[in-house]
């Protein structure tokens, strides 16, 4: 055997060992007068300009490669990064700490098992989660978060978050969103005789479908179980033919979609190609402007609207202006960026409160949730988390439409408003329980 090959082999093996020796864990540290536990160090963040500040490590569990929401989740994470960079270049948290969300960013592939595995991986090193993408994923991780007092910002609008104490959610929820969408449709067009819901399993799609069912009940419209169609991401189902077939069979006036963007585009395109003339109202996560480059674009432009939790890019609020300033000339890929930015405000408020109180620990973050007031810089009304869900929950949605001319592919059709059904709904439990 030639010597060269052997040296390469043993060098490779040695490198293998060295890489593992280099795996060090980041521990907690004291910050002088501020009590800290996990995920906070007195050393500055890696690569930080502020050498006199400590570092708060937050985790991000997002769909970055394989799942149905990766097109939205990657800009979402960029939006969060931009938000915390702006915080760090200003006063940081109470002038004492910068925030780092990149070191513990992991890909959960929109799979609850993968999510829990990655959560276990970053758990010893983070103070809280800056993002936990996916309703079923965050629910799967709930037990572990509860055991460890880990607070999270869910990148999800499940109605059940209003009843959970570990998450700091923002905006409306899928249930109210579906109701608002249908109320808008009834106002804009006509009260539908037949409605359908096409959705993913779990508490994203299920919540939206529950909203449709409650709307039907409140407005005396038929919603038989055949009109409640569950579908799966294309990675698991291959295609949406089953849902398309169901829509063409029932021919409703309006279909409420709670799927991923590619799947929504496929459903709209295929049904329109077969002569379907009803309209589609999609939940926020069903739209990605990239679908306007596909063959379904004409159908999407003419038949589709979406309900949204906040105004799209370019709106006239402090938050949107700050976002535009942060990206400069390089526009983000889609509205996922806006969502990531706006979702981060409650975590900032929570961290600032904890630092002001002198206790930056997981337990104190959890306790402080119902003591903070969040200022969204105009993107949403100020809110807090103390009190019962019926009063606290935000019920307003915007209505958007696909727009090729707009910078990020969508424009506002109707600003924040709450429909009569959502307004009158007695919100005492999650629309779709786990």
């Amino acid at each position: 055997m030639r010597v060269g090959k052997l040296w390469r082999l043993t060098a490779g093996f040695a490198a293998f060992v060295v890489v593992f020796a280099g795996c060090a864990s980041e521990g907690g540290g004291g910050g002088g007068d501020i009590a800290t536990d996990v995920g906070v160090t007195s050393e500055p963040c890696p690569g930080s300009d502020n050498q006199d500040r400590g570092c708060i490590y937050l985790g991000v569990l997002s769909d970055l490669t394989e799942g149905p929401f990766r097109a939205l989740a990657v800009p979402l994470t960029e939006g969060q990064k931009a938000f915390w960079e702006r915080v760090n270049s200003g006063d940081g948290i109470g002038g004492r700490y910068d925030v780092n969300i990149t070191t513990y960013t992991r890909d959960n592939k929109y799979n609850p098992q993968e999510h829990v595995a990655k959560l276990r991986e970053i758990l010893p090193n983070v103070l809280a989660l800056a993002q936990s993408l996916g309703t079923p994923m965050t629910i799967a991780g709930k037990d572990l978060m509860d055991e460890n007092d880990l607070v999270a910002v869910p990148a999800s609008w499940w109605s059940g978050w209003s009843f959970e104490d570990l998450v700091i959610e923002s905006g409306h929820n899928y249930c109210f969103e579906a109701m608002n969408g249908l109320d808008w449709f009834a106002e804009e067009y006509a009260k539908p005789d037949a409605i359908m819901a096409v959705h993913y399993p779990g508490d994203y799609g299920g919540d939206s479908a529950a909203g449709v069912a409650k709307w039907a009940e409140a407005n005396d419209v038929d919603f038989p179980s055949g009109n409640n169609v569950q579908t799966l991401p294309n990675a698991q189902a291959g295609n949406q033919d089953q849902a398309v077939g169901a829509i063409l069979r029932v021919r409703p006036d309006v279909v409420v979609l709670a799927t991923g963007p590619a799947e929504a585009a496929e459903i709209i395109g295929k049904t329109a190609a077969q002569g379907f003339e009803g309209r589609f109202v999609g939940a926020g996560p069903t739209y990605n402007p990239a679908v306007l480059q596909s063959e379904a674009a004409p159908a999407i432009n003419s038949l589709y609207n979406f309900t949204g939790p906040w105004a799209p890019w370019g709106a006239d609020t402090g938050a949107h202006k700050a976002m535009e300033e942060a990206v400069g000339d390089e526009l983000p890929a889609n509205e996922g960026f806006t969502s990531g930015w706006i979702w981060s405000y409650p975590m900032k408020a929570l961290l600032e409160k904890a630092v002001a109180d002198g206790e930056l620990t997981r337990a104190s973050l959890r306790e402080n949730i119902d003591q903070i007031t969040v200022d969204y810089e105009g993107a949403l009304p100020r809110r807090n988390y103390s009190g019962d869900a019926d009063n606290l929950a935000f019920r307003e949605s915007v209505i958007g439409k696909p727009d090729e001319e707009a910078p990020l592919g969508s424009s506002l059709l109707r600003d924040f408003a709450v429909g009569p059904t959502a307004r009158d709904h007695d919100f005492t439990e999650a629309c779709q329980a786990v």
Partner: protein
Amino acid sequence: MRGRRALHTSYASDQAPLNTPAKRLWFAALVVGLVLFPAFATNELTALFATAFIAAVGAIGLNVVTGYAGQVSLGHAFFLGVGAYTAAVLGGEPGRPVLGFGLDIWVWLPGAGLAAALIGLVVAPLAARLKGLYLAIVTLGLVFVGEHVFRETRFITGGVGTGRSAARLTFMGERFDRRTALGGLEVTREMKLYFLALVVLLILALLSHNLTRSAIGRAFAAVRDRDIAAEVMGVGLLRHKVIAFGVSSFYAGIAGALLATITGFIEPGTYNLLLSVQYLAMVLIGGVATLSGSLFGAGLVILLPRLVQELPRFVPFITGQSTGGLITTFQLQTLLYGVFIVVFVVLEPRGLFGLWVRVRNYWRAWPFSY
């Protein structure tokens, strides 16, 4: 005999798994190293190695049926799933929306293996009538049947996209997946899982080592190489194929059950063709028809994502963040995995075991190696 290490004067010493002092020494060193490893490694690495040990159990099972007995099986993921869900039902927390009986590990671990083995025994007669590609397709069909069943039985699996918790680690009524203090030392959940996995691996590896060196193992090799000649010689084809599938499914069931407990949460979509391919990759990359090959292969495939995550520190154009750089670690993980399979199958068919044999032979003959 002293000084003549390779000369054995009794069957016992010849057939012992560690029959030379050198083997005994190195094996002892390895075991000591593995036992001490959690004391120096982070929790995350300990859990990763525990996963690698358990995956090695699954890989050994697949090697027995595909490598030794020559029965191509793409259905390994199905047996992993059966093991995981049997364990989850037997050992899962009662009172949840999904079925769980809260039993001890003494019940759910063997139960998982036995349930998978029973199904393997049922499937095995198909192998008697099919070979090669046809058997591969039929076992692939098993994976799809399994996917459908797991998807539909929501009261067991929680349904696609939702999932359920895995079996709880209770031993004699005590939960042993909590942090405890032992003497002055803190023993974490990951350490306990690591030692459990190590013990299970050592026992099952020894059993499979003995199986493959026994008459049954030799019969497997005969069935793999020339099945008609084997039948002519009196090696029962049906009997040995059934044994191979049964043993392989048992190992897969045990592996599936333990793998589920590492994360503690399982989703039915996991047990798909990709998982079967992952185990085939472990067998191919590690070395077909060798025990060490299963260990090496499982180690590489399981540790690869973690190694890739460390790369941004050394290589500038790879980034660990969601975008930026030339390629992200997440994309690189998926890519490298495929590259390894191709490289090993084309360049080193004996796999990592083959590489190891070259290295070992070189140093054995040193300084007279050439």
